[in-house]
């Protein structure tokens, strides 16, 4: 359906060396900018203080408080929470839904990235703009949208699917779809720039050497974008584990059945089981921060490699 455009391709031929140059320039500039900063110590310190203070009040201190709350009685809080069957079930469900959603997004995300970068077709720009849409739609609206289409009673496709024995809303497929929706752009946003930077010279070379499309994809394309995929997956995982609004709408929120960890936090907190709420929050936050640290540690390594 799509036609390859070799003009674009040729422009890209030089882009990888340009990228290399840019990176080394950035390294040079690191020294440079220190000198710029030294010019006015009062201003530098003022800005530093402002930024650190702002982040401290907004993010760091509150986060620290959650940790304190969780471990107020040592590990007992977490232990009690983990013995609650509702908590166990919610955590397991969250993990299952997230892993499934990330897997689907991975396949879809890599496919769309390839489509956007390697092919030219009418509507490419529109698609590229639409991909970012889930980032600016309220999770509640996402849930509502899915309910309207897949609801078993009055949805567009819902009744038909239900007649065929597939229930989406108030069941796990709906939760997976909601999670996919909100995390959709993350992998694509990581992979697209890398695909653009590496260009398709290597893929063409592989094809000229007799590799089929499938072989080229696995042997050449995937190794080239593997770090981007890793970041995308980790970010998607963090986002999926933490999805609340959209899942709450489609899940039906039955404790022990379709209640995910985030929904559970809300319920427990409102039922004044604060220790449990804080413990589960801590676990979720810990997973999220762990994901961030993984990305932060991987990033410099990968950019070194591509240089």
């Amino acid at each position, binding site marked *: 359906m799509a036609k390859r455009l070799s003009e674009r391709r040729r422009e890209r031929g030089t882009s990888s060396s340009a990228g290399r140059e840019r990176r080394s320039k950035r390294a040079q500039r690191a020294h440079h900018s220190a000198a710029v900063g030294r010019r006015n110590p009062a201003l530098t310190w003022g800005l530093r203080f402002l930024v650190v203070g702002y982040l401290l009040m907004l993010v760091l201190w509150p986060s620290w408080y959650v940790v304190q709350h969780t471990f107020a009685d040592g590990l007992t809080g977490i232990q009690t929470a983990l013995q609650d069957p509702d908590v166990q079930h919610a955590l397991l469900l969250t993990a299952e839904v997230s892993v499934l959603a990330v897997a689907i997004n991975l396949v879809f995300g890599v496919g769309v990235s390839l489509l956007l970068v390697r092919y030219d077709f009418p509507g490419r720009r529109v698609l590229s703009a639409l991909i970012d849409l889930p980032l600016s739609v309220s999770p509640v*609206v996402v849930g509502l949208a899915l309910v309207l289409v897949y609801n078993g009673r009055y949805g567009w496709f819902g009744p038909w699917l239900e007649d065929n024995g597939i229930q989406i809303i108030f069941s796990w497929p709906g939760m997976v779809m909601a999670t996919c929706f909100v995390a959709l752009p993350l992998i694509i946003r990581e992979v697209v720039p890398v695909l653009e930077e590496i260009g398709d010279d290597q893929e063409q070379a592989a094809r000229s050497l007799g590799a089929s499309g499938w072989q080229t994809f696995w042997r050449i394309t995937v190794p080239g974008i593997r770090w981007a995929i890793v970041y995308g997956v980790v970010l998607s995982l963090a986002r999926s584990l933490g999805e*609340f*609004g959209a899942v709450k709408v489609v899940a039906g929120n039955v404790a022990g059945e379709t209640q995910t960890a985030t929904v559970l936090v809300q319920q427990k907190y409102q039922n004044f089981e604060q220790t449990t709420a804080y413990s589960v929050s801590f676990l979720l936050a810990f997973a999220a921060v762990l994901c961030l640290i993984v990305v932060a540690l991987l990033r410099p390594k990968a950019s070194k490699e591509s240089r």
Partner: protein
Amino acid sequence: MIWFSLLVLIPLAAIIVKASGGGWHTYADTLSNSQTLDAIKLTVGTSLLVTALNMVMGTIIAWVLVRDRFPGKALLDLVIDIPFALPTIVAGLVLLSLYGADSPLGLHFANTRSAVFLAIAFVTLPFVVRTVQPVLEEMETDVEDAAASLGASRAVTFRRVVLPTLVPAIFAGASLSFARGISEYGSLVLLSGNLPHRTEVTSVRVMSYLEGGDTAAAASVATVLLVVALLAIVSLDIIARRVARRDGRNG
């Protein structure tokens, strides 16, 4: 493509169709509800304020992260992403612990409009920072040095040379931040108290319509949210372009 349509396009279309199903009537009815109207006003107003704050703070944070060097900067870089990665419900809880009823600082923001502001500021923190940061990294310090060598003070250099380059990125980040702000739900559930006319935001309205079974009303409020987000993105894009062009002509 089919998956994308089934997952994103058709459901979103369904909202608009559902909302328009009752003609203008549904809109009129829903929007004349003073509780809904207050929620929309609060959401949009607060998001605008927060976005303005983010444009200033986000640029400053990005500047410090790129140009300054001090121990612990890498940690600070990591902290920026926390609001993005943290589950929103947990974000609400996090803020509640410091600014809630038993706040050690004596700041009792819970169930007030300040809480709404705080929560939105928290979740939208990364956007401007993360769009401005790469532009600042690409920017040549040579240009600043050149301006300085021509006799420009730091303030003048910043305003005439640095800022115009950053403007598109700042506005791009701002529109993301605004869109995220008006759609925020999770972090507000616990923090704002959802008091009708006072601290209830639009997403919460949609939720309560939905829980009450009034999907048409929910869909029409959702449509309003979508339209506002779209308008904001488009108008910020136009402003950014205009600013960039004006600077080009004068500078």
